[in-house]
C-alpha cells in the first residue's frame, strides 16, 4: 500500500512535468485535422488525449493569440449557430512547416524499432 501510494505520487509528479509544454502539440494536432473554433479544439484535446491533457478556456485563448502573434496560426470568421461569428483557426504555411519539423525531430524517434522495443510497445 505504501509502495503503491509512493508510485502514484511519483507518477503524478512526472506527468505534471511531462504535460507542461504538451498543449502546443495538441492544439497543432487538432488543427492538422481541420479548421476548428475554440470549443472544438478544446474537445479534441480532451477527447483524443483520453483526458490526460486538459486546458482552461482562458489558457487556450491566450495560447491561440500568442500563436497568431508569431504567425504560425491564423483564423477565418464563419457564422455560428447564434451570436457573433466564430473564429476558425488554422495553421499557416509557417505553422505547418514548424509542426512538421517538430514532429520529425521529437516524435518520430519514438517510432524506431529500437525505441519501440525499449518502450515495450
Amino acid at each position, binding site marked *: 500500500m505504501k509502495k503503491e501510494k509512493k508510485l502514484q505520487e511519483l507518477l503524478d509528479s512526472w506527468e505534471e512535468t511531462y504535460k507542461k509544454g504538451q498543449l502546443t502539440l495538441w492544439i497543432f494536432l487538432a488543427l492538422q485535422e481541420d479548421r476548428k473554433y475554440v470549443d472544438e479544439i478544446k474537445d479534441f484535446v480532451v477527447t483524443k488525449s483520453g483526458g490526460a491533457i486538459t486546458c482552461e478556456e482562458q489558457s487556450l485563448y491566450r495560447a491561440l493569440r*500568442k500563436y497568431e*502573434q*508569431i*504567425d504560425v496560426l491564423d483564423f477565418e470568421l464563419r457564422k455560428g449557430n447564434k451570436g457573433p461569428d466564430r473564429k476558425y483557426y488554422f495553421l499557416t504555411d509557417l505553422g505547418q512547416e514548424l509542426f512538421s519539423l517538430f514532429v520529425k525531430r521529437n516524435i518520430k524517434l519514438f517510432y524506431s524499432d529500437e525505441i519501440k522495443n525499449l518502450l515495450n510497445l
Partner: protein
Amino acid sequence: MKIITPNLLKFAGTSFVLTAIFRFCLSYGLENKILLLSVTSAVLYGITMFSAGWFFGKRDWMYLPIYDVGFRFHLATYLTHNAVSELWFILGFNSRYEIIDPIHITAVIWGILLFIHFLFFLWTRKNTINHLDKDDLFE
C-alpha cells in the same frame, strides 16, 4: 502582429480622463487659491495613474504577453498627459496663475527619459519573436 491591444487603448482612455480631471482640479485650485485641492489632486493623480497602469498592464499581460518592458504603456502615458495638458492651455482652460512653460519643459525632460526607455526596449527585442519572449512562446 498586434502591438496596440484592447487593454492598452483602455489605459490610454483612462489616462486621458484622469489627466483632464487633474488639470481641472489643479487650475480650479490655483484660480481660487485652494492650495489643498491642487496638492491633493496631484497626489491622487499619481496614485490613480499608477493603479490604472498596474490594473490594465496586468490584464494586458494575461491577454497577450508582449515583452516590451512597459514601453507601450509609458508612451501612452506620455502622449495622453502631454496632449491633454497642451490642449488645456490652447483651449484656455488654465488658471491665470499658470504658464505653459513648465508643460514644455516637462515634455522635453520626460521625452529624453522616454527615449532612453525606448533604447532599452530595442535592446530587449533581441530576445523576442514578434514582440513575444522567446522563452515563453509555447505552452
